[in-house]
């Protein structure tokens, strides 16, 4: 039935699945670019979506170390897919962005700031691990003392429709990192998908207002119990585990352990893990000058601690071996990140495991290190 009143923030309602199309339409009318998971070139990406039919309905993914496959499954749910290589990072912290350009005018330089055109994003289908990753990057790019204007301008207007995870992939370990599978906070609307309806939790004033005049019901006890049961199943299905009890001490007290070298023999130093990681934030600034020397453009691009030039400084490379670069990545993510930002830098999304061509699994490697140290 059509509702005269709006749902309260924090309350959970049920809507017909088709009502989500009306919500997406209203977001677009409010100037949002609606982005969600979709299939392009036979694989899973994040891109613009118009309505529910653009989502990978009925699809699922199989993920293992170094292995990703998208396939049709026997279900008709819209949000049953575990994300692929892409993450929301690419929208808030773009892989390549112009900072400014300079033009030489006789004896001086004319400064041209980058053309500011910041889209308003609505992210559709953000998982708990991904929302946690966004919050980690918020803490990096929007510190009290330093704020990145590019990130902040994009983040300030981002509308988030999150989704509770019900079928984790083999590479998932958000439970160990205490980041999922249930979404806790930081969303505008949160979806729990049941077979026939969406249970929708209202997280913000804007999320609440979007419901004006739409048909919804208060979620029944049966619906809430079903949602709990599905999340409980997801918890039980998650087999992969990272023992965080001894972190970060295990890593920081064993930086010279020979086991790092064992990982280094397999690591390709290709940068893939860092690029698919939704919290990795390393970047480089490069200048591109015109042939006539009259203009130059400065860009910010994604970089990686696995790039041999990343740690090059006057006199040489401070991380001259592959194992030292892997150790840097792991010890930052699961060690020094905590001193720097107050949390670990991993949310257990599993992307670095799936997308490592050499099938290096950070949970296994850190657990192995723990066992080696105990021996």
């Amino acid at each position, binding site marked *: 039935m059509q509702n005269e009143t709006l749902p309260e923030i924090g309350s959970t309602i049920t809507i017909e699945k088709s009502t989500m199309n009306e919500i997406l339409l209203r977001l677009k009318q409010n100037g949002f670019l609606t982005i969600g998971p979709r299939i392009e070139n036979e694989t899973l*990406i994040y891109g613009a979506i118009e309505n529910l039919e653009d989502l990978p309905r009925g699809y699922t993914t199989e993920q293992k170390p170094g292995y990703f496959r998208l396939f049709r499954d026997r279900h008709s749910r819209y949000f049953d897919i575990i994300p692929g290589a892409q993450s929301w990072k690419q929208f808030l912290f773009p892989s390549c962005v112009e900072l400014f350009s300079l033009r030489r005018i006789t004896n001086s330089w004319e400064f041209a700031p980058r053309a500011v055109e910041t889209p308003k994003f609505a992210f559709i289908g953000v998982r708990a691990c991904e929302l946690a990753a966004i919050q980690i990057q918020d803490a990096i790019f929007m510190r009290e003392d330093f704020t990145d204007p590019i990130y902040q301008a994009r983040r300030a207007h981002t509308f988030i429709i999150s989704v509770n995870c019900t079928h984790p992939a083999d590479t998932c370990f958000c439970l160990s990192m205490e980041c999922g599978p249930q979404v806790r906070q930081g969303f505008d609307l949160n979806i729990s998908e049941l077979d026939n309806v969406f249970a929708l939790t209202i997280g913000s004033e804007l999320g609440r207002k979007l419901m004006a005049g739409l048909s919804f019901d208060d979620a029944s006890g049966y619906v809430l119990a079903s949602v709990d049961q599905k999340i409980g199943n997801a918890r039980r299905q998650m087999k992969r585990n990272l023992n965080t009890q001894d972190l970060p001490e295990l890593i920081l007290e064993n930086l010279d352990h020979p086991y790092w070298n064992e990982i280094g*023999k*397999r690591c390709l130093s290709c940068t893939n893990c860092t690029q698919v990681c939704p919290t990795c934030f390393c970047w480089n600034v490069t200048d591109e000058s015109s*042939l006539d020397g009259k203009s130059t453009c400065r860009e910010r691009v994604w970089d990686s601690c*696995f*790039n*041999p030039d990343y740690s090059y400084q006057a006199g040489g490379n401070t991380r001259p071996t592959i194992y030292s670069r892997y150790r840097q990545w792991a010890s930052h993510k699961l060690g020094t990140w905590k001193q720097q930002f107050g949390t670990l830098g991993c949310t257990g999304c599993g992307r670095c495991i799936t997308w490592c061509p050499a099938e290096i699994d950070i949970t296994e490697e850190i657990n192995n290190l723990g066992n080696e140290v105990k021996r």
Partner: protein
Amino acid sequence: MSAKKPTVAVYKFSSCDGCQLSILNMEDELLELAEVVDIAYFLEATRAQKPGPYDLALVEGSITTPHEIEKIKQVRSQAKTVIALGTCATSGGIQALRNFASAEEYAKTVYPSPEYLQYLDSATPISEHIQVDLELWGCPVNKKQMAEVIVALLNNRKPNLPPYSVCLECKRRLTVCVLVDRDIPCLGPVTQAGCSAICPAMGRGCYGCFGPARESNIESLMAVLKEKERYPGEIMRLFRGISGYSPAFKDAAESLSGEKVTA
């Protein structure tokens, strides 16, 4: 910059002309280029020639004939700076396949009267014959990198040529990894960036045109790719492709084939 524009000569040795075409493909920047340098010798572009010596020689192609051995020495003696342009010039190119077979057999297969040919048994990079000041890899070279090298030379600074692998470029353009997503053998993790990862963006694996990346782990990638081999010898041939005569890829192919090559 001095009032006199630096002179540039572009030479061709054994090659397909693709790297010279990449210079001509600079299109938008070509007029700018002609403003800042004096293109003194570039037969692919113009018959007009000015005599040497030149400030800069851009050399395309590998050395495959006795005549070319002499000619490359003349190029060196006529130029202050020599840049080896493209993978033929830096590691022999695709014609270096002869280094792993019999050049004579190849000649017999291709030409009706091979007795008129004068050729060497192997195709070798420019640096095996003369001192080279900079090697710019690529099959063909990337025009942005080409422009970067010229700008850097004009401004007396080090060119910004990334040492990392194709994977980083691939991820920056948000391409989904073809190796993980569809088991397509790809040399991206051990190949130097610079091409902007065009092949994976088109759903193909990397062919290694830009040569081995510095400090990459070829041994580990060999083991990874061996698991994904679709027909016997596929991975060995992948390493022994465009950059197959570069020492690192040559060693990889040898180790995969179990045959040592002494070309």
